[in-house]
Every structure is written in structure tokens, then in C-alpha cells.
């Protein structure tokens, strides 16, 4: 999109940018290559659907996939509406320097820095014991929602703030109510940002281990309700890699499934984002 001139300075910065990009790509290829190399031949449809056996060394990950889906589903169903609502409030109703906004923002930032294991212990005490949900998919999902909220709210808020002032002013000039201007102008314009926030949040939720060991638990049975304890994919990987002798091959295969799932979610999300932005383009 920008013309590149042929000065030495321009050339060296181009080199710098390409080098940095390669530096990130190398470990990525190494990591994914390693996963593929060790996990690929253990992967089959049967592995994805079957029940784990012999502490996960044999069999598949069917019930674990279902539990993970439910946990992440609960997490996003709770975090997304609250997150977008709070982000809207922070960006549209509180100016940057107002005390209440700064308090909420500051507390969210601190919350983002709370280590996941603390969330796990908190979730265990609050959701499992105080609210008497026990070791369950519900407790796990709610704990993850607490964890994901800060990252979700901050990214969504940034994308609301980035919307040009003109759009708000024109909406106001047309006499749209606040709700309407949010519903028709701001929300659609912020969809890419909301998606980035959701992807980051979803990624963090699906990757989480420490917070789930104490809340959603270790049981690798097929869950029959949200109050059943269910093992998440990342816990399965951790247990196989660190706790079960001979769990490595299945740990690799499970990690591969997890990475593949994330890739699918990303693809779908970016497809939606593209559709939104093309629909959203103002005529020039």
C-alpha cells in the first residue's frame, strides 16, 4: 500500500522488519513441525471419537473434546455479553479521565495479571464450594470467564475507541438514540475488534490448565450435564506429558487436535470479520 523508495535507510528497515518476522516464524514452524512429526501418525478419526483408556495412554479423547467444548462454551456465553457490555460502558459512557472508568479499567488490568493458578484456587473456593457447584464444567467455565474478561474487555474497548469521532457525531446529528447509535453504528464497526478479543480470550480459555485442575476437574468420562466434572484438553495434555509414563504420543496427538481446533476457529472468525468489513465499507 505504501511506495518503497530505494534509500539505504529504507532498505535496512525493510531488512529489519523481515528478520523480525522470520524470527517469529522459525520457532513456530519448529514447534508445529515437532507436534506434527510426533503426533500425526497417532491421529485418526477413532482417536478423536474414542474413550480414553489406561489413563489416556490408549484410546482416544472423545469425552474430553465434549467437555472442553462445553467448558469453553459456558465461558464465552458468560464472558462475551458481559465483556462487550462493560467495554461499551467504558468507551461510550465514561471519558478517559473519569474516576469510575479508571477504577474499573485499573482493576481489570490487575485482574489480567492474576496468575491462572490463583484463579483456579479462587474458582474452587467460590464456585465449587460457596456456590456449591462442585467440580463441574459449569465451575470451570465460570472460572475461565473471570480469567478471560480482562483481555476481552480491553481489546474490545480499544476497538470502540478507535472508531472515528465523525461516526458518533453524525449518528447524534441524525437524532439517533444512544442505544441505536451503538446498535447500528458502533457495534458493527467494532466487530473485527470484538473478534480479535474473542480469539485471544478463546485461545487463552482453551489453553488453560492450572485454573481448570481445581474447578472442572480430572474425570475423563463423557459428561451428561453441566454439573458433571469434565477434563479439558489442556489438562489431558499436561497429565499425559508430566504425570503418565508413556503418555507422550497421545499428548502430542491431543495437542495437535487442540491446535487444529484453534486453527478452525480462527479461520471461521476471520471469515466472519472479512464479511463484516466488506459489508461495512462506506462508498467512497
Amino acid at each position, binding site marked *: 500500500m505504501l511506495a518503497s523508495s530505494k534509500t539505504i535507510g529504507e532498505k535496512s528497515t525493510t531488512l529489519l522488519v523481515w528478520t523480525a518476522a522470520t524470527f517469529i516464524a522459525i520457532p513456530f514452524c519448529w514447534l508445529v513441525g515437532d507436534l506434527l512429526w510426533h503426533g500425526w501418525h497417532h491421529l485418526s478419526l477413532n482417536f478423536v471419537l474414542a474413550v480414553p483408556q489406561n489413563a489416556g495412554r490408549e484410546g482416544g479423547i472423545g469425552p474430553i473434546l465434549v467437555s472442553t467444548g462445553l467448558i469453553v462454551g459456558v465461558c464465552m456465553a458468560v464472558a462475551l455479553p458481559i465483556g462487550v*457490555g462493560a467495554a461499551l460502558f467504558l468507551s461510550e459512557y465514561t471519558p478517559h479521565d473519569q474516576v469510575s472508568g479508571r477504577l474499573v479499567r485499573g482493576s481489570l488490568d490487575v485482574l489480567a*495479571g492474576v496468575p491462572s493458578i490463583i484463579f483456579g484456587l479462587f474458582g474452587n473456593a467460590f464456585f465449587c464450594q460457596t456456590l456449591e457447584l462442585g467440580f463441574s464444567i459449569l465451575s470451570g467455565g465460570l472460572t475461565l470467564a473471570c480469567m478471560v474478561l480482562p483481555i476481552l474487555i480491553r481489546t474490545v474497548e480499544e476497538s470502540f475507541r478507535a472508531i472515528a469521532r465523525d461516526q458518533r457525531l453524525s449518528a447524534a446529528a441524525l437524532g439517533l438514540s444512544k442505544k441505536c*447509535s451503538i446498535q447500528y453504528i458502533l457495534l458493527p464497526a467494532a466487530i473485527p475488534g470484538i473478534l480479535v478479543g474473542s480469539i485471544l480470550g478463546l485461545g487463552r480459555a482453551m489453553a488453560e*490448565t492450572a485454573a481448570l485442575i481445581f474447578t472442572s476437574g480430572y474425570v475423563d468420562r463423557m459428561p451428561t450435564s453441566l454439573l458433571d466434572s469434565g477434563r479439558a484438553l489442556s489438562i489431558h495434555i499436561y497429565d499425559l506429558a508430566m504425570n503418565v509414563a508413556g503418555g507422550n504420543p497421545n499428548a502430542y496427538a491431543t495437542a495437535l487436535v487442540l491446535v487444529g481446533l484453534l486453527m478452525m476457529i480462527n479461520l471461521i472468525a476471520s471469515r466472519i470479520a472479512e464479511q463484516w468489513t466488506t459489508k461495512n465499507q462506506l462508498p467512497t
Partner: protein
Amino acid sequence: MTLSSNNISSHSKTDLYFSWSLRGCSILAGSLLLLVISFILHEAWPALTQIGLTRFFTDNGWFPTEASYELTPIFWGTILSAGGSIILATPLGMLSAIFCHFYAPPLLARWYRRMIELLAGIPSVVYGFWGLVVLVPLISSWHPPGPSLLAGVLTLTLMITPTIMLITHSSISQVPTTYIHSAVALGLNRWAVIWRIVLPASRIGILTGIFLGLARALGETLAILMVSGNVVQYPSHVFDPIRTLTANIALEMAFALDHHRAALFMSGLFLMSLVLCFVIVAEALRRKTTYAGVK
């Protein structure tokens, strides 16, 4: 400066309900922290009252089973590993965001971004696992023992660069194209446009990205536990093993009883106060950039 938009729209009844439901959301989100803090304080209370705050700095070493609770070396371990990784990851993340938006051919840019999104979602366990079986032996053959501050910093860098990159990228792409067009029309070259126009215009977003990356680096538990050696000491160089506050909790919580357990919650409390300090600094920085910035 951001718009204080309270008074530009009508105040109908729907708006009132709507604004209150949004307010409710943010109050809920904000009060979460109070809930978490009160829980940690409750658990750490025995340590605060019966051991006392000063002993966490003055005791001779971390031997909780022998009633000696010095946390300072662990504190420094956390700061060094998170600091090191943020120093490496910030330029890498920003440059790769710039790469993706301005330098890469469109097809490559799309796949590059997809790759980074994927990298953001790979579980920390997988990073830790990879660090343990690939990175640590590599460092060990270079300079034993292998599990070290360096391994921790590198693993963390790999984990937080995607966060910084993605957020930087989304705020770069929201810089109004008119800015860029006018700059190009004025005859600025590509790098000058990026350096003088795009980065300043998106600095709040970049700061948010760095901040979230730092928060993740400080809070990361399992990956750092697997690669950094976990010895409680002041490292004298990057090949020395270190222990972080989070690893301290994860390693010992499962087996800790009574005061040992309370002392581990103190580790959590220390970590949160560390994050609080960063929040205050970041907020000050943000205010400065907001008012002095281009907007």
C-alpha cells in the same frame, strides 16, 4: 483526546435502561477483582498475622517446611523473567505487526496473521513441553545446567509476542487511511510514515498490547515451571536457574499445609501488588500519551 460522549445523544427511557445494563456489566467486571483479592487475603491471613510481613523479606532463604519464608529472590526471578521477555517481545511483536500490515504481500500477510493467531492459542503446556525437550537440552549443551533464566525468557517471549503483535496490528489497521495518504502525498517514505505517523497514532493500542503481554508473562505458570529450573536464588547470569512467584505456587501448593499454604498465597499477593504497580505506571504513561498524543 477521547470524546466525553455523555451529552451528545438523547436521553430516552430505552437509553436509560440500556446504559444501566451496561453499567451493571462493568460493575460486575470491576468487582471481580475485589472478590478475588478478598479470597486471597482470607487465605493469606494466617501468614500475615502469625508470620508477619517483614519476615518475607528478612528470613534466610525459602524453606517453608522449616519456617523460613524469604520471598525476595523469587520476587526478582519474576521481575527478571517477565522483564527480559517483554524487552525481547515488544520490538518483535511490533515489527511483525508492521511486517504484516505494510511489508508482506497480501497472501503472505494473511497467512502470517493466521499463524500468529494460532501461536496465541497454543497452550502454555505445549510451549513448556517444547521448551523442556528442545530448548533446554540445547542450552544445556551450550552452558549447563540448561533450565535457566534464559530458557524462561525465551519461552515467555514466544508466548507473549503474539498478544503484542495482534493488538498492535489491530490498532495499526484502525489508523485512518487519510493520515497515511496525506503523509505519502507529502513525500514521506514507507518507514517514515510508519515511524512518524502510524506508530504515534496507534500508541495507546500498542501500550495496551505491551501491557497485556506483560500481564501474561507475569502470570504464566506451567511453561515457566517446566523450563526455568525453579531454584530459589539470585541469578548471577542468564544461565542460572530461577524460580518465579507463580512457579512457587504451582510447585508447592499441592503439597502445602497450614503456614506453608498461607505463605504461598502471600506469593500470589506479592504478584498482584507487582501487577498493581505496573498498572499505576501504565496508567500514568497512558494519560501522558493521551494528552500529548496526536489525537
